């Protein structure tokens, strides 16, 4: 087991390295044109461009460029040329907001998806199942940003049931914090609920027919006991893995759209604004960290999975 962990961690580091190279290539090498000009933003002056070029080493060879870029990113020496604000500060400011959104949404979607999925599986083929399937399908067809905007406008602005966007610090007022996050959580969760409930449903349906479940029933266990103890447990394993992976994806990416619509000023929104301006340094940094976060979460999930399921542990 320890061997596996070591191996997995080494693999993780290697992937992170590869990711950093890829990000570097995407932003500084592949595109046409002068990277210094690209970074400088709109209507830069010659001196500005020169300064950038020197700072990032664009007139040197590719290896130097890479090491300079990495140094800048990881030592917090990165600055946006648009806003003149340091990138790492902005990221640090936005992180708790993004995490609040992601964790809350993740819990919500997990709970609802389990209920929907399980119920759907139990009533397979009947009206309830078909109905829930339709709901799920609609859920995965809704663009997050659109439904978020609509919810915010109609439920928040027009009807006043919820605040009209914005974020309140947890430390300032927990209740208000919660209140402000209800709509964003729902918006982000809708997509995943649709998806996960169907996966759970199909997993449960597969498990229900396994022999050991039949044995449990034959032993005389109540249907509910059978369901929860035996069926759910096994069906959950792949879900848990997926959940772990998606959590990484949500924190790193999906939140971008939701934060923008609800004006939560998290990391996602920071990235979104930079994108709109084609401001390279923040996008570079956020992309890198997003990918890193996912790689780490993937590794953790793999290790947890190996821990939980002895079958897949290598010798």
């Amino acid at each position, binding site marked *: 087991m320890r061997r596996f962990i070591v*191996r997995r961690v080494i693999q993780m580091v290697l992937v992170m390295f590869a990711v950093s190279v890829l990000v570097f290539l995407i932003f500084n090498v592949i595109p046409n044109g002068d990277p210094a000009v690209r970074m400088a933003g709109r209507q830069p002056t010659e001196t500005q461009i020169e300064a950038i070029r020197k700072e990032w080493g664009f007139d040197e060879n590719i290896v130097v460029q890479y090491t300079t870029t990495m140094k800048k990113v990881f030592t917090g020496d990165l600055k946006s040329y648009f806003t003149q604000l340091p990138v790492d500060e902005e990221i640090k400011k936005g992180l708790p907001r993004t995490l609040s959104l992601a964790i809350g949404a993740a819990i919500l979607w997990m709970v609802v998806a389990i209920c929907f999925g399980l119920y759907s599986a139990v009533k397979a083929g009947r009206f309830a199942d078909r109905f829930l399937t339709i709901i799920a399908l609609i859920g995965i067809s809704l663009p997050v940003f659109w439904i978020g905007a609509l919810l915010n406008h109609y439920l928040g602005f027009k009807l006043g049931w919820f605040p009209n966007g914005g974020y309140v610090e947890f430390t300032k007022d927990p209740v208000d914090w919660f209140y402000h996050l209800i709509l964003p959580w729902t918006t982000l969760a809708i997509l995943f609920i649709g998806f996960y409930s169907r996966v759970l449903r199909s997993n449960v349906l597969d498990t229900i027919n396994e022999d050991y479940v039949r044995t449990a029933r034959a032993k005389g266990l109540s249907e509910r006991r059978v369901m929860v103890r035996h069926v759910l447990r096994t069906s959950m394993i792949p879900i848990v893995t997926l959940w772990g992976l998606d959590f990484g994806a949500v924190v790193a990416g999906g939140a971008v759209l939701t934060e923008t619509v609800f004006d939560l000023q998290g990391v996602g929104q920071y990235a979104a604004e930079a994108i709109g301006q084609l401001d390279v340094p923040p996008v570079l940094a956020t992309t890198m960290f997003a990918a890193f976060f996912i790689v780490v979460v993937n590794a953790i999930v793999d290790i947890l999975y190996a821990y939980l399921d002895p079958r897949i542990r290598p010798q």
Partner: protein
Amino acid sequence: MTQHRSGPEQARPLANVETTQAEAGGASTDGSAPLVEVEHLKVFFPIKSGLFFDREVARVHAVNDVTLSIAEGETMGLVGESGCGKTTISRAIMRLVDSTEGAIRFRGQDVTHAGRRRMEPLRREMQMVFQDPFASLNPRKRVGQIIGLPLRLHGSERKEIEPQVRELLARVGLHKEHVNRFPHEFSGGQRQRIGVARALALEPRLIVLDEPVSALDVSVQAQIINLLDDLQDDFKLTYLFVAHDLSVVRHVSDRIAVMYLGKLMEVSPAEELYTKPIHPYTSALLSAIPIPDPEENRRRERMVVSGEPPNPINPPSGCVFHTRCPRATDVCRTLEPPLARYPNGHLAACHHPMNVSPEEVKATEKDRTSPLSAGDELPAASGANGSGLGDGH
């Protein structure tokens, strides 16, 4: 019986036996040269593990120095428990698996490391029938396509293939009209017939059969074996018949080889193996064959072995069977017995052979097919035991 060789196939350049023999570079045409032989063949599979890169940490000794030759027209039965290496040998001969050491010769040509290009003309001459009738046919293809594939691969025109395929279906006892059906529409036995038809398509010289009836019901087994028997006469085929059940190979084989843990235990003319098994392992296998008559069953003396086959990653020292053999002594634990030649072309590798007279034991010689790792220690006359243990029927 109609010779399948007549007809439009004669136009095909490589169907001619003589041409291929000439290619073999002067293999003797007196018919006594073996069609296929393996010499001191070893097939080891590496087990890899490691932190960064996979390094070989152990090997599975699937086939551990086996020498066998099969003459043209002969049927060689190859028997043993699962894991003994018989399947690996069959795959090695078909070049589906790479061998680690030793030589494989087909018609005198060395094909041990032959790549795909070199094997191409030879593939017409050696074909295989697989064990699992459900897995060996592509479920998404129609039966006609499956049987016709080897013909297509070796250059036949589509027009020629269709009638040939129907003919083949009829030859193996199926309906010609079913050529457009899917494998799942047939029973297990019928699917094996399709497998046989596929193997026959190119009119090969050698057919390697890897447990062709193990997955079938007993009544169907007999039918398939009879079919194979008939086909052998009509098509002048040579068979390597791999099985784990001694009773199955009895009637088809001319000679039978018994394997255990990658090594040959005994090689014998077919009938003699059952009446006069020399190696204790063979006796044990025979004892395991159930006899329907309960009285006879009770009456016979059985050789029972204990335990499970050891791990092929770490084969036992000396005689590989010693850990389970009731007749094992110290010499068995330390020295690997050579394959000794007994009368009638009967070979056995044992320090304490059974069912042999002391004269026969004295007269044995070490056979040239003996593994290189085996010593020269032939069984002592006193050690031989002609006791009633393990009488075959």
